[in-house]
């Protein structure tokens, strides 16, 4: 049993994972570890395999080589999917004319848990209100989702992922289409979720500049894993890292909070 307790500290463990859709590998020999309570920024250019790696983690794709453990259990045996919240890249490309309130959208996060032929109870509704509160959107509970800004909608989708009380939250490019100012607020909120509510976070992004102020760990991915360590070590070797990752020199400016200045080419 003691052995098992040791394992529960590990939220994600990926060993020597390789994956290809057709003949070319998009991920090669990835070994990655996320401990409980970490806030990992997974960065890499577009097409670097970030989203594919997440799909493997969620069991949507099966890697050709290597193995994955979630919460200390091999993926094949893993059944605690309600412990994982996932906000996909496509979350904010929904039909924005859809007549649904913030409350209704967030309650969808409980539907899987509630099961067939059952309805929301008072307790469930309470959970929905709490999740909306956590992302500071209580003032908009009965507002149509289509009337909110991109940043606000993104918060609602986070709330939907939070409502089932996940231990791990995976966010795939959550800040695409969100203005710079809202992005900062958004990251601050994520940091709070991580520190105050103890939720392990994995944030996938190609925008390195903004993220490094908030995350505890960084992993750089471009088919291979180029860096994996804490944020301080990352910032020390950042310039060197970026040129390996993106294939040419990228000058990172200092982290004054003007993040528009340190954008990274995404080709």
């Amino acid at each position: 049993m003691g052995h098992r307790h040791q394992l529960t500290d590990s939220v994600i463990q990926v060993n020597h994972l390789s994956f290809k859709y057709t003949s070319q590998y998009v991920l090669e020999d990835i070994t990655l570890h996320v401990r409980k309570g970490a806030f990992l920024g997974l960065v890499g250019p577009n097409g670097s395999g970030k989203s594919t790696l997440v799909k493997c983690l969620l069991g949507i794709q099966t890697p050709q080589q290597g193995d994955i453990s979630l919460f200390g259990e091999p993926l094949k045996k893993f059944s605690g999917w309600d412990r994982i919240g996932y906000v996909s890249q496509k979350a904010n490309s929904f039909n924005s004319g859809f007549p649904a309130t913030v409350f209704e959208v967030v309650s969808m996060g409980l539907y899987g848990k509630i099961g067939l032929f059952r309805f929301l109870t008072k307790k469930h509704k309470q959970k929905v209100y709490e999740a909306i509160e956590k992302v500071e959107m209580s003032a908009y509970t009965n507002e149509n989702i289509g009337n909110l800004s991109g940043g606000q909608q993104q918060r609602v989708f986070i709330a939907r992922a939070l409502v089932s009380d996940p231990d791990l939250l995976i966010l795939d490019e959550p800040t695409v289409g969100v203005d710079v100012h809202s992005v900062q607020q958004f990251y601050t909120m994520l940091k709070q979720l991580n520190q105050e509510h103890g939720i392990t976070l994995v944030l996938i992004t190609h925008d390195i500049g903004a993220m490094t102020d908030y995350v505890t760990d960084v992993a750089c991915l471009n088919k291979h894993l180029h860096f994996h360590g804490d944020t301080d070590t990352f910032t020390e070797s950042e310039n060197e890292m970026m040129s390996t990752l993106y294939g040419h020199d990228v000058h990172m400016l200092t982290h004054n909070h003007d993040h528009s200045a340190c954008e990274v080419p995404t080709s």
Partner: protein
Amino acid sequence: MISVFFQYDFLMYAMFTGIMVGFLAPFLGVFLVVRRMSLIADALSHVTLTGIAFSLLLGRHFSLFQGLNPLYLGAGFSVGASLLIERLRNVYTYYKELAIPIILSAGIGLGVVFISLADGFTNDLFSYLFGSVVTITQSDFRLIAAITLFVSGFIILFYKELFFLSFDEEQAIISGMPKRFIQWMFIIIVALVIAASMRVVGILLVSSLMTIPVASAMRLAKGFKQTFIYAVIFGEISVIVGLVASFHLNLAPGGTIVMIAVLILLITLFFTRGRHT
């Protein structure tokens, strides 16, 4: 004014059937509209006519079919076509809407052939085209009541799944919503509701009751549940006012019902002008 509807059996059937359809069509229509499938109702209603024409044709040649309510074959054709549409939508993944004109024109083509084989239009067929609420029989009434119960039950039991899948299919599948089952059941239900509504407003106008009250509701509603409530209220007002008005003014009931629904839409558009939906 309305009391006359409870003095005669045929008017009572008309009123009760109208009330059921006024509930059912907009109720299901909300899902059709948000899934961007409102045109499917049109395609399926035309195929329903094909089934009815086929049934009337068979009735000419085989006495066995003479006693059969043509609505049964109409509903059967409609369900069959709905399954074909679903197949075609999967074949033309990038041109999903192509399935609709294909089935619509194939249905009309076949229907016209059946009609010509039966030596042209009969009065019967005409009443299906434009609706004929006063000729609703007890057997129609029973069939429509059964469809209403079945469809409402399904939507209430699978409300969560239908809602989630309509809003965000990818996330819904990850959460374990049974997409395939819901998708198939949904399209079959659309076919059934069309067969039920066409007795009241007719084939040519059947999609109007599924879309116009919803279009009005979406201008006013906050949220999904409210959209249902408004849509059903507008649907019922259209049917009841339309029936009573058409009876007293001697107008075509189907057309009058649709005109009331359009009037409600115009009023809501006027009061919500400047807002984008």
